[in-house]
């Protein structure tokens, strides 16, 4: 155990996020148990697991929507509890299912939110919003002044990604971002997202229960079960893993493949 943390500290230059012996519990239940994990700059780490396994909680520990009951989470080498919460969150893009867009803001205002909060000039924010909408494949002239309810689910999700990218944060957190979309839209958004993170050299932690999504998007896949990280492997090694939980996921994949 001490050996592992020494190893973590040594590599910290390149490690954007580190979990050191992190546990999180509510008064009656243990949600996360003794989690150790590092996320390197530029990689997309996918946390895979069923509902209630603690993957969303893990995500929320990074941008301090939650703080660990014990252990610590380091972002850029500094514990989240030492960060100013507001400053920390503005350095981290956050995308949730259905986008979590503000229904009373236009698309432009939704996307330009963090720049506006950070005190950017209006002209610069406006320019940035147009750039981002184009980046996620939405025509700024058509969409900027619309309201979220006037968009389709896929379009809203694109806006959610654009909003997370607005202030050019080094880290993105994504909580089942493509979960509520139809399979075709989901597939094309997954591809675009993979391109985008590669092109922009973003670090991302993505949470999903869809093993196919994990395999497409992840540089590494962490499998979580009942608050424990069972394994953490690149996709090819994940497919070869002997862990029964991992096998169960891989079998669902083969079953679907067999149907075709």
């Amino acid at each position, binding site marked *: 155990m001490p050996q592992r943390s020494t190893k973590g500290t040594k590599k910290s230059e390149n490690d954007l996020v580190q979990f050191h012996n992190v546990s999180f519990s509510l008064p009656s239940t243990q949600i996360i148990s003794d989690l150790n994990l590092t996320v390197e700059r530029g990689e997309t780490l996918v946390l895979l697991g069923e509902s209630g396994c603690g993957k969303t909680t893990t995500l929320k520990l990074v941008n301090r929507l939650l703080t660990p009951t014990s252990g610590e989470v380091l972002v850029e080498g500094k514990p989240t509890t030492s960060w100013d919460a*507001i400053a920390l969150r503005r350095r*981290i893009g*956050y995308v949730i299912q259905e986008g*979590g867009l*503000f229904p009373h803001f236009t698309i432009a205002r939704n996307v330009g939110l963090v720049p506006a909060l950070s005190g950017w000039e209006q002209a610069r924010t406006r320019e940035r919003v147009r750039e981002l909408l184009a980046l996620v494949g939405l025509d700024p002239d058509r969409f900027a002044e619309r309201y979220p309810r006037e968009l389709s689910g896929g379009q809203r999700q694109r806006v959610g990604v654009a909003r997370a990218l607005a202030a050019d944060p080094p880290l993105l*957190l994504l909580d089942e971002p493509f979960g509520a979309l139809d399979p075709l839209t989901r597939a094309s958004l997954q591809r675009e997202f993979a391109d985008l993170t590669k092109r922009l050299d973003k670090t991302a932690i993505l949470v999903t229960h869809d093993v196919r999504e994990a395999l497409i998007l992840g540089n590494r896949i962490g499998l979580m079960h009942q608050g424990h990280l069972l394994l953490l492997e690149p996709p090819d090694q994940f497919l070869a893993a002997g862990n029964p939980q991992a096998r169960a996921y891989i079998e669902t994949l083969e079953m679907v493949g067999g149907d075709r």
Partner: protein
Amino acid sequence: MSFWHFLQLNWSELLLLVRQHIVLVFIAILIAVIIGVPTGIALTRHRALRGPVLGLANVMQTIPSLALFGFLIPLPFIGGIGSRTALVALVLYSLLPIIRNTVTGILGVEPSVREAAVAMGMTDGQVLRQVELPLAMGVIVTGIRVATVIAVGVTTIAAAVGAGGLGVYIFRGLRQYDNNLLLAGALSAALLALAADFFLGLVERRFSFEAKRSSTARKVASVAGVAGVLLLILGGFAFWRSGAGPSPSEQGRVSIGSKDFTESALLAEIVAQMLEARGVSVERRFELGGNLPHEAMVSGTLDLYPEYTGTSFTAILHHAPISDPRAVYQQVNQEYADKFKVDVSQPLGFENTFAILVRGEEARRLNLKTISDAAPHTPRWRAGFGQDFMSRADGYPGFSKAYGLKFAEVREMDLSLTYIALSSRQVDLIAGNSTEGRIETLDLVQLVDDRHYFPPYEAVYLVRQDSLARVPALREVLSKLANGISTEEMRRLNYEIDGNKRDPKAVVKEWLGSKGL
């Protein structure tokens, strides 16, 4: 008189009452919003306070409005009579819907939206101002809308504590059995409530983000916004105008009160007009319920009001009734000076005592002159008495015992209704007021109180001693009125107003002219 004709004659007074009504509701809702919305916000942040505070606001709203006004009257600073008390009560009533809807609205914001706001790096204040409040606004406006409609209704009760508003017409209409007054008061209040509901409903739509807004809906919403602003401006204007009006009991100004029946208001109006003729400015606070005029005078809000010696003797000083007018007058005079620093004027020359009345034809047929004459007939008679007579110390229980009366049936009903009930043969004997104008017009006969059971109720003015010192004209006016009004005259004056539905001010002016006062 047709309702239309009534409106033509009284539209300026009606507009004044509508304005008072709007001002009361507007200020009360404004204060309730200023208190209620921040309270609601605080409750969303402090879960532990939510139950107790909402519970308290809930309890406030279950107190019947008349009772709440009653509780407030004796309190210092927030109590007393007039619009301040009414405002306190109205604010208390308006708080619950506003606080509750603020809490519901904010807690009802989609959790994912709130989470996104926090995760974007918004401070708590930014989440509140930019996300929670805008999204909760529709629900909050609904609360304000509900509170406003309730307040328009409750404000009609505010007339009972002298705050004015449309309740003045409703109460007066109930007392005088004048459907035009009732209709004008109730209809205007209902229209006000509907109008407030409609405009605030439009404002509410403006803030609803759930419904898809087409361009026409957007147009309607902006019209509503304009209308809302107009309403606010109107309210503000009415407020400003009312602020420009006279304020209570200043130097050189005399504040005159009256009880809530025609004769008391008439007597108060007589003094008011005589003072005005002498260049004294007068504030009229007429038609106050219960013991309000007394309490208001003792507390210094009123300078003067008309009273009856027997009422002071029994109801205020709590003495057992006695029948000697001189003794009652002197006792009241003495004790008021000692206890309240209040002077009692010379008697005005008439009594307003309980008048035991029967139909004229019956009196003539059976040759009835006194109550004792009537006693043998009572086992075959039905009696109709007002609530007041049934309950007070010198009322029905002592009265029936003094004369040994046993009625076939005793009905408790509204005093004003008993006259009509008697003349239309639904009852056979009533206890009316001796100065009631309808005694003559309905051909009723007052039986003589031959055993001198009823205490004397001589009409007098009660006036604060410091007011007499401050306004010399008061003393002169009161001395001119000593023994100035006979019972017959009082009956005639009452009938001019209750029977002929004439304007009290005009009746008083005419009478003062005829007497050379």
